[in-house]
């Protein structure tokens, strides 16, 4: 009986804590937006963050995209040819990539590469009192440190997702056309007939934009909010990766059901 009460009490405490954190994150987001002016007027601050979150994620994105596309090519052909429609390989590869895998997998990679680095950096600056020092120098840390990292992530992510999808289609083409011998013309023409720019590709871009903003917000928030100790920092980093992954997958479900329900 006592154990049950205790459990319910802990559950309640966790719920209150969770709601409190969401509210705090929302207030933090409003503050971030209000102090975003400098990210635009002093564009080199943002450009620098695009370098750290975008350029440094290039390699992992390009290589993973290529391999995911190649696996799709192999597995997809295996299944499609049983129904005699191996020519539709291009459709399968491109639709899975532009609609789902591109934004989602690129988002997960982005969270674990760039998101983690941002949390670690901001968290370390907090732990070593660099943010306090900045604040005492009458420089707002949210405007100077947090907002450029957020916008850098927001800009980088759709480009990375597009690169991931493009590399994936190339990988599928490599396996399907070059190695297996699907007809080159059929591969591309069936793909073009099935993939609609506004419907499939733009929705993919919208998804990647939403994921980018979500991951970037989680990353800067966890870093800024971390307990300023070594242990608190490592916990914040773990939280960034876990929360980002969950948020991406949950948001993907919501967005997919809004975008594609009953359409095809």
């Amino acid at each position, binding site marked *: 009986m006592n154990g049950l009460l205790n459990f319910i009490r802990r559950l309640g405490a966790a719920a209150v804590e969770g709601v409190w954190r969401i509210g705090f994150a929302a207030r933090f987001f409003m503050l971030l937006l209000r102090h975003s002016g400098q990210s635009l007027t002093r564009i080199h601050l943002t450009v620098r963050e695009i370098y750290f979150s975008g350029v440094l994620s290039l390699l992992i994105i390009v290589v993973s995209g290529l391999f995911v596309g190649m696996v799709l090519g192999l597995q997809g052909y295996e299944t499609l040819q049983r129904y005699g429609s191996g020519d539709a390989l291009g459709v399968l590869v491109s639709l899975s990539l532009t609609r789902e895998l591109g934004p989602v997998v690129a988002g997960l990679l982005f969270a674990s590469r760039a998101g983690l680095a941002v949390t670690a*950096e901001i968290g*370390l*600056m907090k732990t*070593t*009192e*660099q943010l*306090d*020092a*900045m*604040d*005492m*120098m*009458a*420089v*707002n840390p949210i405007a*100077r440190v947090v907002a450029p990292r957020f916008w850098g992530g927001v800009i980088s992510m759709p480009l990375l997702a597009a690169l991931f999808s493009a590399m994936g289609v190339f990988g599928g083409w490599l396996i399907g056309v070059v190695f297996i011998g699907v007809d080159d013309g059929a591969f591309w023409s069936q793909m073009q007939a099935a993939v609609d720019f506004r419907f499939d590709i733009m929705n993919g871009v919208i998804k990647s934009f939403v994921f980018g903003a979500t991951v970037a917000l989680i990353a800067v928030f966890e870093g800024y909010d971390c307990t300023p100790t070594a242990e608190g920092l490592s916990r914040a980093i773990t939280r960034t990766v876990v929360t980002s992954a969950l948020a991406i997958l949950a948001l993907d479900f919501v967005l997919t059901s809004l975008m594609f329900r009953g359409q095809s």
Partner: protein
Amino acid sequence: MVSETDNLLVSLKDVRFAYGEREILRGIDLKVPRGKVVAIMGGSGCGKTTLLRLIGGQLRATAGTVEVAGRNVSSLNTAELYEMRRRMGMLFQFGALFTDMSVFDNVAFPLREHTDLPFGLIRDMVLMKLNAVGLRGAADLMPAELSGGMARRVALARAIALDPMLIMYDEPFAGLDPISLGVIGQLIRKLNDALGATTIMVTHDIMESLQIVDYIYFVSEGGIVAEGTPDELRASKDPWVYQFIHAEPDGPVPFHYPAEALDQSLIGGRSA
């Protein structure tokens, strides 16, 4: 000297502060005259750093008033607070240098953020500040390449970059070797006099402080327990001051954390 009320830069009146339920400061009265170096001393965890944050406006007092240059800090809005902080320099405990910038860029940071000066002028000002702390030659190093004492001096150069009216130090001597300690101590005094600034220093290093400061406040358990000039304190018969200056392990500040009597814990405690 503390009686010259019209010439005070910082004054705290009955300041109280609590983190939630936990009361840190219980009614502090403190006066810092212009041009002086004042030390706030006390054991670890007695709320000294909290005091600096109250003066800098990073925390707000639960009760009482904090006045800096005649203005009540708790009543300022963010813009006014930032305006005031431009005329304050603060040295954090471990320097808090920006790890992704070189020494030069660290010192140039406040100048670049708050002024539109041309590059050449900023360069000259940064090199002058670095020269004042004896580190002009280290301008191109990264913070990771500096020793603890050097990092502290660079942070000091950064704190005085905008020629502040008030310089605050949070434990400037913590973790330094005796030579660096002497260097920092001399710098604190010399920079204060050269810039015509006022200095507040939070520390528990009594020997170094007695040599360079004009006035000392002792803080314990959230209140001021003693104050005076270094000479007055050296001659003081107050048991609290005596224990602190002579570093006695036991006295008004007990060696033992409050507990039941020893024989009770050892014998009575087990049989219970």
